[in-house]
């Protein structure tokens, strides 16, 4: 499968995404500089984590204006698969490709640790490899991952089953203690209405091998690989 990983000034998980896809999952990977508009015919676009534009102004707020984002939006509109991780999730929300927003963590501090996630939806290109309510151990590393959406929006994403991942405990229970950053409804990842654009705060790019302490990120990558390919 062909993946294109975008690079914004300040992206810093681009190498990790490239590595897990090319060297672990053995897929083709193109790296796309943000000033480019040609996505190089991918099956899936990956918007990696980092601090695009230093997170100055607001996370993702400047990156959404980069030339490459117009191409990403067009690609998504045609049904292409797009996954945004961490800062990538923030950018997709700012660009209006995903619902909601990511606020400062409730404790106002950056948090880096492994967390447990419950897979809420398996009928998507990004989670079809998971069992319903499977628990994944995947790390987070962010200062602004506190998911928020207004009550109408929440109802919509609930009704349309767009909530993909929730923070949970090791046994899959959704509890206040297992919510690291204050996210509404413990939400860790959502998809768009068409289910071809997915954003999540945790890092499957850092949890694709046992040597790193968890290979659970593989379930996301394997889902994408077994999904039917969207538009090129």
């Amino acid at each position, binding site marked *: 499968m062909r993946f294109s990983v975008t690079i914004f000034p*300040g992206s810093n998980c681009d190498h990790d995404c490239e590595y897990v896809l090319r060297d672990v999952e053995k897929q083709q990977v193109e790296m796309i500089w943000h000033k480019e508009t040609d996505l190089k015919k991918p099956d899936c676009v990956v918007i990696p984590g980092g*601090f695009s534009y230093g997170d100055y102004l607001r996370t993702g707020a400047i990156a959404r204006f980069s030339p490459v984002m117009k191409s990403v939006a067009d690609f998504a509109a045609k049904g292409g698969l797009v996954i945004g991780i961490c800062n990538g999730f923030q950018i997709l929300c700012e660009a209006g490709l995903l619902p909601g927003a990511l606020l400062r963590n409730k404790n106002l501090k950056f948090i*880096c640790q492994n967390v447990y996630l419950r897979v809420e939806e398996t009928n998507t290109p990004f989670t079809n490899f998971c069992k319903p309510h499977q628990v994944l151990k995947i790390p987070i590393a962010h200062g602004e991952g506190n998911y928020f959406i207004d009550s109408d929006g929440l109802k919509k994403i609930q009704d349309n089953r767009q909530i993909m991942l929730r923070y949970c405990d090791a046994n899959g229970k959704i509890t206040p203690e297992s919510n690291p950053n204050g996210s509404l409804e413990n939400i860790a990842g959502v998809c768009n209405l068409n289910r071809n654009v997915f954003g999540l705060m945790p890092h499957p790019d850092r949890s*694709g091998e046992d040597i790193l302490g968890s290979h659970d990120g593989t379930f996301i990558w394997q889902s994408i690989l077994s999904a039917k390919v969207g538009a090129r």
Partner: protein
Amino acid sequence: MSSSIMDVEITDKVIKEHGLKPDEYQRICDILGRKPNITELGLYSVMWSEHCGYKHSRALLKTLPTKGDKVLQGPGENAGIMDIGQGWAVAFKVESHNHPSAIEPYQGAATGVGGILRDIFTMGARPVANLNSLRFGPLTDPKVKRLFSGVVHGIADYGNCMGIPTVAGEVVFDESYSENCLVNAMSVGLLKHDQIIKGKATGIGNAVIYIGATTGRDGIHGATFASTEITDESTEKRSAVQVADPFMEKLLMEATLELIHGNLLIGIQDMGAAGLTCSTCEMASRGGAGIEIDVAKVPQREKGMTPYEILLSESQERMLLVAKPGCEQKVHDILAKWDLHAATIGVVTDTGRMVVKENGKVVADVPADSLTEAPVYHPAKSEPAILKKHKEFDENTVPVPANLSQVLETLLADPTIASKRWVYRQYDHMVRSNTLIRPGSDAAVIRVKGTQLGLAMTIDGLGSYCALDPYEGAKIVVAEAARNIACSGAEAIGMTDCLNFGSPEKPEVFYYLDRVVAGLGDACRAFGIPITGGNVSLYNENPTGAIDPTPIIGMMGLFQNVENRITQWFKNDGDDIYLLGSIGQSIGGSRYLAVTHGKKTGLCPTLNLEIELKLHQSLKVLADQKLLQSAHDCSDGGFAAALAESCFTGLTHEEKSLGAVVTLPGDGRLDGRLFGEAQSRVIVSVKPSDAAEVEERLKKSGVPFEKIGTVGGDSLVIGKEVKLAVSRLADLFFTSIEKLMA
């Protein structure tokens, strides 16, 4: 506008304000054959400060061992570099940012990280890990909480934004640092042998190019500021503290690595302490050349800056480089891609002089070498009377507490011993997807992708020991850092040091410095570990006195096969527990004596270098044979704290906690055996099926050892003295700092 400052008369007062002594001023006049103008005086002032010129410490530092088979670059460059095999090399260095952090903790600490990162990528290496060592006063002090919080936040924001994992560190809270916090930052980078580049200027006529952020008025005289004691007036020198822009540095790093790996450069150096001045004269000096620059061509943040200000600014995120002939345009193209400033500001000459012009008019003209060769002093030293008092301290006057379980609880909750989870949770320690052992074990371990190689790393300091016995204390710092590496299963290959002391101009302080350097050198020679670079931070004083003499050691370890790594926590019910080394019974200099009895005194533990080395070698052999389930060294809190940590620190890696039932070896006072800090001790756990082979190998090695018990249950039981639920101990250990900072 600059003419006004050019006309400043060089009076005795002006000379003194520049931190120069009368004989140093005379020396400048002799070098130039005339009086310097104010700009030239500024150049000598920063380059001959202790921070840049090492004038009080250089003679001592020269005695340290710096050579070894694996050393590709020793001291004298931006960072040391060592061979790790398969064409790969590791660059690493530690540096202090104590003074700025004491005044403005967030910016001071952040720019400390930025500075050490530039030192690494300037060598052509991609930074892959950060570490830091911090010292503050007691955490119950609200002022300390503010400093601690600000420093950690500054380190976190910079490293996280750069995308470099902060994988290890240490934090000590002690009254000695109440007025002078220590912030030492270390960075580690990976590169191929053929990517090494140095900070030199050669090739007459080659373009000298400035890249990165614009130059402002921030940080003027930062180096001179860092070379004086902190007083009430220091807070007025806040403009000597620089402002951090990690996003700018991230762009600068990517652009710099693209330039170096594209083979476009002859030399490159970052502008850190003493800014443009330092990079210009050092590059010229190393290349045996001269450099001529025009400050009017330097990208500036504000109008009306004088040559003096431009030369001495310590604005962050800037580099100076010399392009290969014909590559100048390519350099500018790459900088444009990253939206960074690039300006050709001068050329390499054959004059050996640093010539500075402003719009073509010469404003400074001095021999480049004369700036980099600061005067070397051999300060007077005298043994402080307090050292004798410490040695005479009678431990028998200290009562043994009745409830030793309670003592263990207190120690595990002591902020110096307790988990630093509150700290490292704020650091991205996993980015770059190489971190195999995260914070929480004796050493952090990262892999080298595409190989079986791995790097273990740790940073350690023991100011409290050095205050009691600087020679023995320094030996122990090196030993403890190397032991931490050995406990991870790696081989210690090299180290970097940061020497944090008071004023070297005080004979009692210089005595400590002299003895510490002797101890470091002897330990390094005994272990065969070279020092590839480092930093001194002197003048860590305030009107109430100096800090404890505090050498900080960053130790680098190498795995040929990173699958042989070990963590410090117990793994399986039923495993046998061994103590390697001898139990000891003294409480001198221990954290226990300080925390429980309020006494920072006694005989410093002693270290037998030969036994210590055998211990490291045995651990390596056992690790390579995969015979160890866990290995944890005994340090603060002694035998009992090390056992407790072995029980529950698996929780840091989502593993389960386990109990243990052990005997208390040895005889003599119980508190000494439980909490004393005798050296060369490691607690290991071994599968019963491997026990016979482990014992056989240990017997051959000559390392003293004793089987002390078994892993299992929910409690930690040590003889008849200690019985505590592991869950309670874990809770005390992990939440202590969080509660204090809430």
